[in-house]
């Protein structure tokens, strides 16, 4: 029987959400890992776009930063940073935006700015917005990947860095956001999807061996369960092998990929925690 970590399961589940031929605006950290895994397995024609201006990058390993040389060297095109946001992201021509989070709320809003009730005197100062607000606003759909805990999955985020469904269904339309918003949240326990009526995230899938009450216990709001709840298949051997190959050649990068983009030490946990089987 294959053994794998919860992080590996999460990355594999995230990779599966990306279809071949899609264009994907990739955040750094786990989104980049998952997008590169997808390209190495079922989606060889996945187009990776990084906010550093690299369009169609084909890195052999997962880059540590969104500006590693390998991205420029393997890209179909490298454009300036103003251009990547204005001509490529903003008009809604990108299929999927792939983001991390330090805090996420029940309407899929993302916080990567400050933890605590005061912006001026934060408990934890996080790195901030980066490209995320406009990725979340403009892409046809958004996938979020984030480890699950009561603190991370809050009723309401302390600071809305990037809008999911705002105050609920209809918010995006009222705000004039052109993209579709979060379609899928992938955690180390399972997956959440927005209720199409309310915009509230509900539990849509669990990994093998994960119980619904466990997920609910690790969620800071009263998590509803989809009537169509599925058990997500464990990683296939091909998926695990590809993932481990992708990470192995750059130990320093791999060591750090456990830290999602935009997350401070609060989100840091050793890789390997949460082995499920």
């Amino acid at each position, binding site marked *: 029987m294959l053994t794998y970590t919860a992080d590996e399961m999460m990355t594999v589940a995230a990779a599966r959400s990306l279809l071949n031929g899609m264009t994907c605006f990739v955040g*750094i*950290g786990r989104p980049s890992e998952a997008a590169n895994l997808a390209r190495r397995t079922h989606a060889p024609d996945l187009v990776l776009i990084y906010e*550093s*201006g*690299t369009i169609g990058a084909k890195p052999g390993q997962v*880059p*540590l*930063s*969104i*500006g*590693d*040389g390998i*991205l*420029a*060297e393997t890209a179909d095109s*490298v454009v*300036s*940073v*103003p251009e990547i*946001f*204005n001509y490529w*992201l*903003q008009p809604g021509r990108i299929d999927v935006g792939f983001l991390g989070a330090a805090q996420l709320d029940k309407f899929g809003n993302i916080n990567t*700015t400050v933890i605590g009730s005061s*912006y001026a005197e*934060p408990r*934890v*100062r*996080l*790195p*901030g*917005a*980066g*490209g*995320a*607000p*406009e990725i979340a*606003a*403009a892409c046809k759909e958004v996938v979020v990947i984030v480890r699950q805990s009561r603190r991370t999955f809050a009723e309401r985020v302390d*600071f*809305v*860095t*990037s*809008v999911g469904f*705002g105050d609920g269904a209809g*918010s995006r339309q009222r*705000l*004039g*956001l052109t993209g579709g918003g979060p379609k899928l949240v992938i955690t180390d326990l399972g997956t959440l999807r927005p209720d199409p009526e309310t915009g509230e995230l509900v539990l849509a899938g669990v990994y093998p061996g994960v119980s619904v009450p466990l997920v609910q216990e690790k969620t800071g709001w009263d998590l509803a369960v989809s009537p169509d709840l599925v058990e997500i298949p464990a990683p296939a051997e091909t998926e695990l092998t590809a993932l481990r190959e992708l990470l192995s050649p*750059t130990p*320093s*990068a791999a*060591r*750090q990929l456990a*830290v999602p*983009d*935009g*997350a*401070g*030490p609060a989100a840091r946990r050793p890789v390997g925690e949460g082995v499920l089987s």
Partner: protein
Amino acid sequence: MAEIVTLADAIAAAVRDGDTVAMEGFTHLIPHAAGHEVIRQGRRDLTLVRMTPDIIYDQLIGAGCARKLVFSWAGNPGVGSLHRFRDAVERSWPQPLELEEHSHAGMANRFAAGASGLPFAVLRGYRGTSLLANTTGVADIVCPFTGETLTAVSALRPDVAVIHAQVADTRGNIQYWGITGVQKEAVLASARSVVTVEEIVDSLEPRPGAVVLPSWTVDYVAHVPGGAHPSYALGYSTRDNDFYLGWDEISRDRDRFSAWLDEHVYGARPQVAAGAGIKGGAEC
């Protein structure tokens, strides 16, 4: 026309106390050596502007050069927090740091507006975010044709732009390639500019993906090989990821940071590439 001078002379001539300074470079081509020279020369009260303040701004903030930070993502890319930045924001050490915080799209457009000689730029952005209530330079704007409400951001017009490039020619024309970021906009938006380069050649050769800044758009050029370290210059060096990882430890502790600064910045000779003594691995 650009003057080719030493790094020390360039910074002394271009960067003054109280200036608004944009040291740009999107992960690639970050002007670390020039930043160290600013620290060495003891500049104070700077408003530091940069989309992705990372290690060099962490150092400038920790060294007490900065009064204010205008930015969109202040982190150690791929690693996590900037501890000197956090210490300044969370505990006002060594002094309080005023923040003006934006998104990348906002900052990129603010630089583009500055480069274009416009007081503002228009984008789809910020709407629904908490940034709106906590920053300046962002306002609603209504399309005069469709009535749609969009977002205006105010132009950035720094006093000085500082960038690192691969090559200059002897006339001071600048060429850089790879990830080209927002440096062209930063230079064109700023009143003055300093460019450090890996190499000075007789004449530039055309290269795929290269940006060329004509000599007449630049004020000072300094020859500083390795001047981007631990960032990199495509074709000349690779990103020193171990240094970025190691910085996490160095920067967590005020004393350790100060000791590092003493040894590697204040103790370094100005024109020597500041990266030389601090290669990753062992020291980090």
